[in-house]
């Protein structure tokens, strides 16, 4: 009986030893050198693997960070400046702070403003609809409302508002990874700096039709009337293809353009409520906190 046990122990141990020797030899022979800093950098990253940095995942981002000479070209939108500072510390380099960004949906076309002109009964997928035709309203530029951006969001930062049929971005959850921007077939989502005290002003419309056509399709469309352009003293507004665009870097958040917009297409976000004169009732509606 003892013999059997001894024999077993010897056999198994020798097989194990032989395997260990082979494995050790193989691991030495086929060793691939990897910069240990890659692992260190990866530990600092949020591990969301969202692709927001433009690379397939956090590991690739870490590799790129180690390889690059200038960390300012790299940015992890999820971790933000904090993470980039940590990465810079690990690598012993310097990095400049970047503006925090947030996704904004540039469409105002709730059903009460934008009448349906046809009925779509096919697959509920924005890209399929956009490939097929212009959408069920007369505005060919606006939101289709099937929520592909919401599906694309990895951070639960978006939802479809059941009353307006439009996507809403939750500001505190949005990491500005840009997944929604990429997936939207109508290109109505833009990444904009969050602004001072999270306050920002933007034109919530992408309609490039002439004023009359745009207004007919949607009563809150930007008609390119250039009233905001005349009002702005800071040269922050430009109008192209009958569509106004506010440059976030030039805008000083004076809110004058918001008051003059005849179609309420310009939005102000996170501002304190205005003291209203009686005739300014329409403005009241717009000072809604988004998210």
């Amino acid at each position: 009986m003892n013999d059997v046990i001894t024999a077993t122990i010897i056999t198994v141990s020798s097989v194990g030893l032989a395997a260990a020797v082979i494995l050790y030899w193989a691991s030495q022979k086929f060793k691939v050198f990897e910069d240990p800093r890659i692992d260190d950098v990866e530990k600092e990253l949020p591990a969301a693997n969202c692709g927001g940095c433009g690379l397939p995942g956090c590991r690739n981002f870490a590799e790129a960070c180690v390889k690059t000479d200038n960390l300012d070209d790299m940015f992890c939108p999820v971790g933000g400046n904090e993470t980039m500072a940590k990465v810079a510390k690990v690598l012993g380099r310097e990095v400049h702070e970047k503006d925090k960004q947030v996704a904004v949906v540039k469409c105002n076309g709730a059903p009460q403003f934008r009448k349906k002109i046809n009925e779509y009964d096919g697959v509920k997928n924005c890209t399929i609809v956009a490939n097929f035709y212009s959408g069920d309203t007369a505005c060919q530029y606006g939101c289709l409302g099937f929520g592909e951006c919401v599906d694309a969001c990895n951070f639960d930062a978006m939802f479809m508002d059941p009353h307006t049929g439009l996507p809403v971005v939750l500001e505190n959850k949005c990491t500005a990874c840009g997944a929604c921007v990429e997936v939207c077939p109508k290109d109505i989502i833009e990444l904009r700096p969050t602004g001072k005290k999270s306050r920002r002003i933007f034109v919530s419309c992408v309609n490039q039709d002439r004023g009359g056509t745009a207004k007919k399709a949607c009563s809150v469309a930007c008609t390119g009337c250039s009233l905001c352009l005349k009002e702005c003293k800071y040269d922050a507004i430009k109008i192209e293809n009958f569509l106004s665009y506010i440059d976030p870097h030039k805008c000083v958040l004076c809110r004058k353009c918001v008051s003059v917009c005849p179609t309420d297409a310009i939005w102000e976000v996170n501002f304190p409520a205005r003291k209203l004169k009686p005739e300014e009732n329409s403005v009241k509606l717009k000072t809604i906190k988004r998210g």
Partner: protein
Amino acid sequence: MLKTFPKGGIHPPENKITADKETVTLPIPKQVIIPVSQHIGAPAKVIVKKNDKVKTGQMIAQSNGFVSACIHSSVSGTVFKVDNIPDAGGYKRLAVVINVEGDEWLDNIDRSEDIIKEINSDKNEILKKIQDAGVVGLGGATFPTHVKLLPPKSMKPEVLIINGAECEPYLTADHRLMLEKSEELLIGIKILMKALSVNKAVIGIENNKSDAINKLETLSENYDNISVAALKTKYPQGGEKQLIKAVTGKEVPSGELPVKVGAVVQNVGTVFAVYEAVQKNKPLIDRIVTVTGKYLSNPGNFKVRIGTSVKELINTAGGLPENTGKIISGGPMMGRALITDNTGITKGTSGILILSEQESKRRSLKPCIRCAKCVEVCPMGLEPFFLMALSRKTLFEKTENEGIFDCIECGSCSYICPSDRPLLDFIRLSKKEVALIRKAKRIK
């Protein structure tokens, strides 16, 4: 023994209501809307401006690049505006709007009904005339014809196949053309044979059009090397690759042009347009459109000028029935629903089909039961259910390996699916995405 393609195919109800209705020429409308992009390829460049006087047949937009086609005015009158106008899909595209005044044709166009049998032009002249006349494939794909007649030097065309299958249910425009303009068609075929330097032509016709088969068979005896092949009635018999397989028995390899196996396919409508362009100097400014539907009071085949509004056409056919659910441009299998009847007939409009609410309703999507009916009917031998699953999960690269670009978008899979799954919608989505990926790779 009837010829057919071996794999897949379906047998939808034919519903060829208008098969024995003679073609009626529609009166000239008051206004026409002529988009400058009625073909595959680069949009044509507009060469007229507002308030210009144009004559019927005058060129209003020049072809812009090799794969492009010229656009001609289909009426005489004044250019009302050159502007972006919503097309059938609702997207705004450049179009020329012309207010009609009288009907004054260009002098060099032969408007008589006489049949000219002599082909005096040589090969290059024929190609030039076809290109100048803006002839495109009238089967629906609207691929510029002159491009198709100039195959790559390495490949030599051997046989010209004329597509008279008209496998789409409801549509009868090609059928009527074959019956009414048989002689012209055969001359057109001769012209194309000369242009391609081939000495064999076969007209493929589904056997539900026996009158057309008989007529063309009798007439073709007077012409050398032209024969008629009766084909089995099966959808999509008129698909280019299916037709080649049925007529010649050769299979076009994946991703290759049909001319690789020596075949060039042209639709009968295109052949007639070629005849008019070469023999009569007449550009492509009108076409036969079938206006049909079970509830229309006066369905029929109409010869209409390009740019005539769909509304006008429907009014001639008895007005829009009350229970209309969808107006479809093209046939029920591959056609697209229009968003408004206020859009113009283009070169590619082979039919206007009015479906009732009942007929046009999409049934709700149910789970896939793995019956493999879509695999069975796919004429290209693909696995539509699998492609849809991959596409839904956005695994577009994988669909490329599954041969997504072989899909001819015939819609047989969506038609046959007992669970009413929108297979083709997702395949189209994937095709589009894969095309983008390929383009990105090429740029790199």
